[in-house]
């Protein structure tokens, strides 16, 4: 059964995303909304990992190298300026969407193993990840015209 591999991959991806949000918050602290929201969302990602941990343990531990091999590492920021902000948000969006689809797959696994506790965790975390993506999209849509057209 490879379900545990997906748990490991998801934990890794959530931790990467948490770190990305924190870097984003620190690197773009001059954007008055980014600092606080990014730290809030980073905390959410940490909580997702905490919620997954008992299941990861129940279904078998996974080697750290495996986690690294499967997980994405996309965020290279923080970059500077309006365009840098947009690109960093863009990276986070890709990472969040990786988490999102991984939650969906873990949810499929939960269905297959008939595990209601896991299903409940998936449901709540998946909807938070969806909101994270919505926030990133909202923020990017607002920033894009200025960054792409008027910034110098």
């Amino acid at each position: 059964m490879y379900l545990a591999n997906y748990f490991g991959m998801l934990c890794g991806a959530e931790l990467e995303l948490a770190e990305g949000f924190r870097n984003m918050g620190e690197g773009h602290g001059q954007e008055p909304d980014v600092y606080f929201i990014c730290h809030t969302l980073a905390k959410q990602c940490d909580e997702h990992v905490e919620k997954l941990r008992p299941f990861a343990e129940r279904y078998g531990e996974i080697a750290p190298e495996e986690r690294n091999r499967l997980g994405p590492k996309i965020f290279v920021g923080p970059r500077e300026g309006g365009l840098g902000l947009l690109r960093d948000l863009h990276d986070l969006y890709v990472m969040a969407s990786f988490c999102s689809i991984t939650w969906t797959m873990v949810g499929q696994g939960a269905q297959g193993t008939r595990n209601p506790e896991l299903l409940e965790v998936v449901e709540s975390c998946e909807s938070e990840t969806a909101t994270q993506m919505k926030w990133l999209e909202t923020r990017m849509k607002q920033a894009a015209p200025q960054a792409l057209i008027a910034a110098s």
Partner: protein
Amino acid sequence: MTDRIANPWGERTPFVPSEEWPVRVDQFLEEGVSEEDVDRWVQSASILHSNGDAIDAAVKDGRIVGVRGRAVDRVNRGRVDPKDLFGWQANNSEDRLKRPLVRKDGELVEASWDEAMGLIVERSRQLLDEKGPLSFGFYTTGQLFLEEYYTLGVIARAGLGTPHLDGNTRTCTATAAQAMKESFGSDGQPGCYTDIDHADAIALFGHNVAETQTVLWMRMLDRLEGKEPPKLVVVDPRPTPPARRADVHLAIRNDTNVALMNALLHEIIANGWYDQEYVDAHTIGFDELKKTVMRYPPERAAEICGVPAEEIREAARIIGMAKRLVSSALQGFYQSMQATAAACQLNNLHLIRGMIGKPGCTVLQMNGQPSAQNTRETGANGDLPAFRNWDNPKHIQELADLWNVDCLQIPHWAPPTHAMQIWRFAEQGSINLLWISGTNPAVSLPEISRIRRILAQEGLFVVVQDIFLTETAQYADVVLPAATWGEKLGTFTNTDRTVHITEKAVEPPGEAKSDLDIFLEYARRMNFRNKDGEPLIKWEDPESCFEAWKECTRGHLCDYTGITYEKLREGSGIQWPCNEESPEGTERLYTDGVFITQTDRCEAYGHDLLTGAALSEADHKVMNPAGRAIIKPIEYQQPLEEPDKEYPFRYTTGRTVYHFHTRTKTARAPQLQDAAPDAWVEISPVDAKSLGIEEGNMVRVESPRGHVEARARVCNIAQGLIFVPFHYGYFDVPTKDSPNGRHRAANEMTISAWDPVSKQPLLKSAVARVIKVADSDKTPSPAPTTTASEPVSDGSTDGALVPATEGGERAEVSSVIGKE
């Protein structure tokens, strides 16, 4: 005669439930002028707060010489706020701006209108050619008239095509609008002031009504002193006049509003004090709310908020058992953490109790400024005109048809840019022309050292349109002298949707022009055209603009089509919607429990209350509220900054009854200025004692961003909290008291952060430390004694002697009770 400085609220006229509020006509004329001397009385309304009190200005020999209340008006029934009684004197002030100024070799020098406008237009054309419309930003106010905002909105959105237009209303009323959009689908106050007349319970949430809307407080006081008085619940960390009168006063910690609201909702649901029938028929989301608030028993909130659980229970009992409940919220909610979230919980409270749209049953999401409502309606506040949805292509098409421009000309790829973001773009150099009208951000925005730096920035062309050379105007490249209240014609709308006309009583000083004429002149010179090559803006005076605006509102919630200048002149204030079906206006919205939440009609599809993530049309369709109000629950979230060893206090800012905003007018009215002549620092007796501070000691308050030095007022503010009024800047102090010398502006210390949903700056959310600078020199702090800043002692035992705040003979105002 009443000294209205010593007694800001005047004489009582008690009344009983559902009786009409008695008339009391307040009148003040300048020394040496009697009623017989007055040439004429000119119809108007108050411009120094949001209450919309109807007043007449007295004119003699071409000058304004006084004011009196309009007995016929539903809002104030003749009463006048002390700021309005005396504030008009600023009109006649010697230092009014009389000619345009332009910057030459670093200095502002007088210029002709032609030269000043020529410079602005030259720069505008150059920017349009080189960078396009995204390089323009407009930062306006809550103090112009409806016609002026609408014109500015059309210039920005359809003429230039920039999304960067917002008002300082972002700092005062954005949350009110946003909370109503989230819950009811659209901006628009559900109830009105006459609901006070019917209420059996009143709950004020972070709303020091006695100082911000004195006439509304008079109405409440008259109910409190009549038979069958309403119960009063007050949530405020300061001992405000309403808090002193309250049955329950919850002095909660700053930034904990959501925890308290969730506990109140918990009690109401746990005790079955909600209206299941109304909830089922007219709302969605109740089950989610129930699940969330069940985690907030009063004991948990008590711990977070720092008030006893039993008091929370008692407040919930009053609110939960009231038959007719009026609640209101203002800056204590709107400028704190989770602003929109907290204001939405207040909406939720009224929704689950079924107390909306019936006499005596409403939530009042208040405004701070006189015409903030119009900034919102006309689309000058980061919204689109007449509550249209920027994300709904049909709404954009309507505007495009109305203005006869291409849809693509109107920016609608994202919500119109909010103020703090406009400033950020200016800071980053992507906005290069910033046009500021009728507001003073160098004093009123958070973290003003940053604002000053941006204003002074190379490559940013700053236009300031104002009536005085404010702290902000001193940074301008071009200063345009504007006419003010009493010098120009127009209309404006108050918190409870009452529209008033305000006539031109006198000529503006020198070459000053109305804001409308300035905007129209810019539009003419820029030669903005519609699709057919005709002038984009076809109106040329206030009345023709008002007629154009009416067309913009036809069929929308804020329907003005039934109002004319003539009708306003014949009577007094009229509440929108006013149209063929309701020719006399509308007292209450949502009387049938049907809200503006239809997907094709709503002003916004809504947001996630934690992050501000925007929901899409598809999300909204899935939610399918279809006319039902939307109950959105939210968890309490810890503040941005929590006190620690280095900064052990919470820091908050606010107002006093005697001043408005940055005192540009009220500092020039001697009665008001002398009542509160300088900034002060409020501190609790326990905290004062532990720091060795006595009344009047000079103290320095520091936050991670800046500091303020002022005298201490030891008063009954909540322990652990420091308050500084935000009115005081630097225009009327010597250079040693300027930003380079002694800092006294409260916003030196506030944080550049905003509510994720309403984007309102968190001006009440910061930490601070307090240092005593000097021992007592027996001078008391300049804080008034009549208000929330009342001292704990008169100084006879410790510190400096505190004289009572009085205005003396020159503040005496006549009041006639019962005269229509």
